[in-house]
């Protein structure tokens, strides 16, 4: 197990180096002078030169890269041009709504996906099953900004049950906070639920056909016991795979969901930074997201080894 982790960690290093190089290059891909893109035409030349010096853009590119990497290694991700605060502070202020959204969405998706997938698999080829597969297809093809607007239209505008935008922290305001997160979390969770339903249903069907299930039934175990202890447990591995694979999609979905519902999360921060042309902030946030993404994938890899010892032995 330790070797597996060490091996994965080592393999990550070159990728991390390339990721930082890519993020660094981002600023230099702008057509024309990045300073002109960041500041309005009207700003006078001395202010522009000051910013240029501050960002080190007056130096040769290799020197800039070395200096930037040096700061990165010391944990300095740069400062936002707009509010002058370090990137880290900008992000840490925004991380809570994003995490709450992600957790709630995950909870919703599993709450929907597990019963639906189990019902679909147990009542294979019946109306329930068709309902499950149709739901999966629907969830996969539905753009989540559209789903968000449909939910807003139905529950916010027409029925007026739930708030349609803004954020209240559930850890401070309790119920009001949960209410403010329901529609965003359902938006994000439904798409994930679709993918999980689809995967879990088919892996359940496989597990149901195994010999050990027949044995379990033959020795007289109750069907619910067979499903819980023998089928479900063995059907979970593909679900972990899919959850890992869906992580990137989930982050992208969170960006859009936070944008639609005006949640002050990290995804919203990315969009705002992009449109404010706050390139140092864009670079910093994107680098953090990429590193987080790589780390979670690493975690999923390690999780496999833990769930399924056969993978460890490869």
């Amino acid at each position, binding site marked *: 197990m330790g070797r597996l982790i060490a091996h994965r960690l080592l393999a990550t290093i070159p*990728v991390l180096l*390339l*990721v930082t190089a*890519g993020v660094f290059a*981002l600023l230099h*891909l*702008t*057509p024309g002078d990045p300073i002109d893109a960041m500041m309005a035409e009207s700003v006078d030349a001395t202010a522009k030169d000051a910013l240029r010096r501050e960002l080190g853009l007056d130096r040769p590119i290799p020197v800039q890269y070395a200096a930037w990497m040096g700061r990165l290694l010391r944990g300095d991700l740069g400062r936002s041009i707009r509010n002058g605060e370090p990137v880290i502070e900008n992000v840490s202020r925004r991380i809570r709504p994003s995490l709450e959204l992600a957790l709630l969405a995950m909870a919703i998706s599993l709450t929907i996906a597990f019963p639906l997938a189990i019902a679909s698999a147990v009542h294979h080829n019946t109306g329930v099953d068709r309902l499950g*597969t149709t739901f999966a*297809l629907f*969830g*996969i*093809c*539905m*753009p*989540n*900004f*559209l789903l968000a*607007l*449909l939910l807003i*239209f139905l529950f916010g*505008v027409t029925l007026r049950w739930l708030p349609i935008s803004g954020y209240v922290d559930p850890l401070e305001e309790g119920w009001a906070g949960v209410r403010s997160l329901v529609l965003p979390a359902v938006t994000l969770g439904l*798409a994930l639920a*679709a*993918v999980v339903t*689809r995967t879990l249903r*088919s*892996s359940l*069907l*496989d597990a149901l056909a195994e010999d050990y299930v027949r044995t379990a039934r033959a020795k007289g175990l109750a069907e619910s016991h067979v499903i819980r202890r023998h089928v479900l447990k063995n059907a979970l*591995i*593909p679900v972990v*795979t899919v959850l*890992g*694979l*869906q992580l*990137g*999609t*989930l*982050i*992208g*979905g969170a*960006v*859009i969901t936070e*944008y639609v519902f005006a949640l002050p999360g990290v995804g919203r921060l*990315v*969009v705002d930074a*992009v*449109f404010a042309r706050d390139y140092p902030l*864009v670079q910093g946030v*994107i680098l953090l*997201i*990429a590193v987080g*993404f*790589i780390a979670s*994938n690493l975690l*999923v890899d390690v999780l*496999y080894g833990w769930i399924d010892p056969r*993978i460890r032995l*490869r």
Partner: protein
Amino acid sequence: MAGSIPESAFADRAAALAGAAAVSDRRWDALRRAARARLAPFGAAVLIAALAVALAAPVLAPYDPYAQDLGSALQAPGRAHLLGTDNVGRDVLSRVIWGTRVSLVAGFVSVAIAALAGSLLGIAAGYSGGRVDGLVMRVMDAVLSFPPLVLALALGAVLGAGLTGVLIALGVVYTPTFARLMRGQVLTVKARDYVEAARALGAPAWRIAWQHVLPNAAAPIVVQASLSVAFAILAEASLSFLGLGIQPPGASWGSMINAGRGYLQQAPWIVFGPGAALFVTVVGLNFVGDAIRDGLDPRLRG
């Protein structure tokens, strides 16, 4: 999944688990194939209709998609305006029709860019092996280290708003999938006896690549491309929705939906028209992609 890009990232890891997953995929596919006996023609019809609408947009659109008429703003769907009008009185149907062009161009062109770039990189990597292979594939890994939409957003920001920026951004995002696929094919084909024989006869590398590797690798590339188009259309709509794609007053489904979201209460049809067009197109293209996969890549069948 919604609003995003196919999950080919970390496919290697999935392959490690293929033993367990292959059987289940097959069963799922078998069921879906049964369903598709009805659905593939629907997908094809949607694709043909979308292409026809895109080509004949100037003829089909009842109004000028840019013509504002404040006097008839926010009109509900009716005889004069089948899908209603938006906040400045533009005909929603006409804008949906013109938006079809943007969506299809975005879907097909960005996937074409990715398929071309990815195939070339994959051939180069698989064929040269060694350091070139290592470098190219690590770069592809690095691209896959970014959540697709976030990368597209950053690239779009840097390249500037507009369709070209979006096409390039999506092209970059999808390239690694094709590069990995092509490299895998090259490695498989390279080990075959007939390639050995061709090399022994003194055939130059480019000839082997052209005559032996490409024809063998074409099918999976086409399959992947057809499955990617629907996701690329979704991705373009997402970027346009966020404001990066086609700029106003240009008509793209994503930007129309974004513009209409402020009027959900008074005029939900501004969102529903382009929303329905987007959803139906993506579902249809998914069916077509699945059908092409079943036809071209029998290994993926049950």
